[in-house]
């Protein structure tokens, strides 16, 4: 029970709650769209952090779970008219299954080889879906407008997806916090520090890595369904966009890999920055370059990220910032 009293956990939850409640209070649709993107990144980056930050495996093509989940969910909704909840769970389950099957094979690879393999899998999946007729090939799947009637119209459906992603963002923080405090989390961090030593110390590394991979895949699969349901259609190019995957890596780095608060801060910070650059007349055309330059500065000078930097500077914070 002591874990529940950790101030860092409550700080992180409070941050998400404040963010999430803001559009609800004013019933502000524009704010809702902005915060939806932020919360989506919070869920994705925090999930990625379980594999990247805790276990030390760089998954460049993590977007494959988001895309696959989205496709499975959209397929079920469009073809079999299942409810959004079942579709979301199915998206998460499909992502988990894919991660489980892949994990057994590709987690044997280390370092850059693993990173390359995840890119290859994402590209293979994108090319395959592009050819896969049941998923609509290159044009993808589009939802009919009637689908949203079951949720009280499109406007209501949008709010519904928002509440769901809000709940998932809270969930992802709890999951990353309790994994980090658990024996399982310790074994992941042991793998990160030295995989061979961890194995000698009795960590069953193939199993621990596979479960870390599965856990980091489920929520991206679920938010994929939510995003594309809200979007109304899904295409291979949007679903398996490698660039989005890498942006989420950047968020984890920005906030601090291996911490609970880090990916949340990173996601909020990155999306705010992106929003600012996209709307600023000076930076609008070169927003990608400015973001790239900032990323470079962080990688070169603050590789531990914001939270990691604070923890290194002020040892007293290590207890309170998980």
């Amino acid at each position, binding site marked *: 029970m002591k874990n529940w009293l950790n101030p860092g956990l409550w700080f992180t939850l409070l941050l998400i709650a404040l963010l999430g409640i803001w559009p609800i209070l004013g019933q502000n649709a524009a704010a809702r769209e902005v915060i939806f993107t932020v919360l989506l990144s919070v869920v994705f980056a925090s999930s990625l952090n379980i594999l990247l930050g805790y276990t030390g495996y760089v998954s460049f093509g993590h977007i494959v779970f988001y895309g696959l989940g989205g496709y499975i969910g959209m397929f079920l909704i469009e073809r079999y008219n299942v409810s959004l909840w079942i579709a979301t769970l199915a998206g998460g389950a499909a992502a988990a299954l894919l991660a489980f099957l892949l994990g057994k094979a590709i987690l044997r*690879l280390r370092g850059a080889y693993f990173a390359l393999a995840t890119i290859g899998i994402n590209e*293979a999946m*994108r090319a395959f879906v592009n050819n896969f007729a049941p998923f609509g090939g290159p044009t993808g799947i589009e939802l009919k407008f009637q689908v949203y009637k079951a949720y009280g119209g499109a406007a209501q459906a949008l709010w519904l997806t928002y509440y769901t992603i809000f709940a998932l963002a809270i969930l992802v923080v709890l999951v990353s916090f309790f994994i980090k405090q658990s024996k399982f989390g310790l074994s992941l961090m042991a793998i990160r520090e030295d995989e061979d030593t961890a194995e000698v110390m009795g960590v069953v590394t193939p199993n621990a890595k596979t479960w870390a991979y599965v856990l980091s895949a489920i929520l991206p699969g679920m938010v994929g369904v939510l995003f594309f349901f809200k979007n109304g259609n899904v295409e291979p190019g949007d679903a398996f966009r490698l660039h989005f995957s890498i942006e989420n890596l950047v968020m984890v780095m920005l906030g601090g890999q291996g911490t609970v608060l880090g990916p949340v801060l990173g996601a909020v910070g990155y999306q705010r920055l992106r929003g600012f650059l996209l709307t600023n007349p000076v930076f609008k055309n070169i927003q990608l370059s400015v973001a790239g330059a900032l990323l470079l500065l962080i990688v070169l000078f603050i590789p531990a990220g914001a939270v990691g930097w604070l923890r290194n500077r002020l040892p007293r914070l290590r207890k309170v910032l998980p």
Partner: protein
Amino acid sequence: MGNSGLITSLVDGVLIGVIYGLAAMGMTLIWGVMSVINLAHGSVIALGMFGIYLLFTSLGLNPYLALILVAILGLLLGVIIYSIAIHRVVNASHLSTLLATFSVNMIVIGLGTAIFSTSPRNVNYSLGNLTLGPVTLLNARLVAALAAVLVTSALYLFLYRTRLGKYVRAVANNRAAAELMGIPSAQILALSFGLGTMLAAIAGGLIATFFPFTILSGGVYELKSFVIVVLGGLGNPLGALAGGLILGMLESIIPIFLPNTWVPVLEFLLFVLILLVRPSGLFGVKK
């Protein structure tokens, strides 16, 4: 498709494969010397394309002469990229170097998009066709493939017949020992990175002489380079050339049996499979 069609597409595949191999060689050289996967590779390929395009359209330079200039600029660009973005993290984790090179990619693509937009361009310079029995070839591709072979031979001579090349191989083999022997490793690393980007720029320039392109086109060839590099074994330049030939031929043969859109599916499945079964590549030594 008749027999001559098959031969034509096979020869075409070989010609384009050599150029793929050249681009991949740049990537594999950088990996071999400093264990960095260069995610800015695609953007340098695109810069090579635009280098030829600009020199040809605004200065009226012959594209093949322009190639020499592009090669020199590519070398310099690589040295600059290395000094600014890579040198500080060259010993850090793979994540750091991947993200450092990716940030370079973002900067280049961002500026490139702002300057050139993403509309397609092409270098309007034709060399005509060559008909050999049943086979008709674009001369531009033939010359490009020859140029690629020439560059490859020059690289080989450089690596194995010059003192500087020996330094590069020594640093690749064991950087600490090379430093103890008095080799200035920082400069050699910068030079190797420059050579890698030079090859990418040349490959981009050659591709630009017969395919239309945009500033984002480099990404496609970067992914192909990944596949080739893994086929030939990470860090093995000659393997990259062979991998390029294999990929080029696959790309020309698969469309005979399957719709064209299945090519990337098979390519990337092969890529993942090789990583799993033989991570040292088709020609690498088995561990």
